[in-house]
């Protein structure tokens, strides 16, 4: 049986960006989250926050017009935008910790059925970089995780209990993978959307905890 197609990184970012509401302050982690910036519908005004000290900055800069003094948290050169502001690191994390970020999108190594997040320490390396992930996971009003549904070896990344060091317990609100969209609810993990061609049973087979299939489960919209 040929491997069925999974969602591309771009489609995952497109799906996540549907959650962005007009006027929201959004912080995007490194990796797939960064791609989300390309997809909110143009009638929405989003204020992007980067933890190294800028709010409402513009798109990634071209190599010619980049400025070493204007980068995002991934070190990419970005551009200015009218209504941008700049601030120190303590102020930036006062914003995060103080609940002033509406939505944060992060990558993950593992997510548990309770919404525990592990995204910084590979046990085999023995050391990792926490960065600002802990602060964002706790501080943002809503946290969406975007990641591949399984590891490279095909093992589930959505687990009953994370066995990697936690970034934060019970912090994830929604999981978008290359196979499904899952809400982390009080009653458990609710399967809301499926990648085209995939069944709930197939996704359940690649997920350790039991998924509650939503009565109105639908297909993920492809770009």
């Amino acid at each position: 049986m040929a491997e069925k197609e999974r969602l591309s990184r771009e489609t995952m970012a497109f799906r996540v960006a549907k959650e962005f509401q007009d006027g929201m302050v959004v912080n995007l982690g490194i990796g797939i989250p960064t791609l989300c910036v390309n997809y909110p519908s143009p009638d929405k005004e989003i204020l992007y926050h980067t933890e190294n000290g800028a709010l409402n900055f513009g798109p990634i800069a071209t190599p010619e017009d980049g400025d070493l003094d204007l980068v995002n948290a991934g070190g990419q050169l970005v551009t200015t935008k009218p209504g941008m502001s700049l601030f120190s690191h303590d102020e930036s994390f006062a914003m995060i910790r103080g609940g002033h970020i509406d939505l944060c999108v992060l990558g993950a190594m593992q997510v548990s059925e309770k919404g525990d997040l592990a995204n910084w320490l590979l046990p085999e390396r023995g050391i990792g970089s926490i960065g600002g992930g802990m602060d964002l996971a706790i501080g943002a009003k809503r946290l969406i995780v975007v990641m591949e549904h399984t590891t490279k070896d095909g093992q589930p990344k959505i687990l009953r209990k994370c066995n990697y060091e936690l970034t934060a317990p019970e912090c994830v609100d929604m999981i978008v993978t290359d196979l499904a969209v899952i809400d982390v609810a009080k009653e458990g993990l609710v399967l809301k959307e499926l990648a085209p061609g995939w069944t709930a049973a197939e996704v359940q087979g690649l997920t350790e905890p039991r998924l509650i299939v939503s009565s109105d489960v639908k297909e993920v919209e492809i770009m």
Partner: protein
Amino acid sequence: MAINKVVASFDEAVKDIFDGATILIGGFGTPGGSPSYLIEALSRQGAKDLTIVGNTVGIGKELMQVVASFMSVPEWWYDGGQLAANRQVRKGIAAFPVSASPLLVSPFEKQLRAGEVEIEIVPQGTLAERIRAAKAGIGAFYCPIGPGTMVEKGKETKVIDGKKHVLEYAIKADFGLIRAYKADRLGNLIYRGTSRTFNATMAGAAKVTIVEVDEVVDAGELDPERIATPALYIDRIVVRPDEGRAQIKQKISKEEQLQT
């Protein structure tokens, strides 16, 4: 006597840094905000057994050649990795001690694996707040970041408004090496873009704060409403050589919106 905090050379600015000192190093881990010339001077000066505190502990010149494939790496860029490569570091306190890829192994990570150096990993916001606490005379604070993770280990906790908090202490340092855009002779500073970052947070947080700037202007030239670091936080000012400035000046003319 008019106050004048400008010192003549980077070597002079760092000459009293002693073995075993704790040093705050500004910036984010990118060239823009890095106090490169001060770090280079400290590596020449040779003080040993340093504890370095910053967002990263630095990757060093060799790894910079590798990251140059996806990140702008000017020649003048030095980071704390230079000190590790030079075996001047005993301990790091950082949020990003190692690069995201396990394949990019810095001098510090090598020494860590060999058990030659220590690391204290601190969530980035908690790190910034612990540094600010030292500047602001706050002994310790209850922080909601860390409960239920290894960050909590061995620390006092307290439930406040139903949420568990971890007690975090101020990080008190001997010297702070930071990077700003312009200074006046009194020590007032402005920064440029996201290079403000940990630099403004660290300004005044150590016993002695040394700043590397592009330019020293007359007192009164900096808009009092825009000064991000008031003069009393700064002890010494050193001006970067022209090559660094030239590169940034070129950028400025291209980027009118980022007002200077």
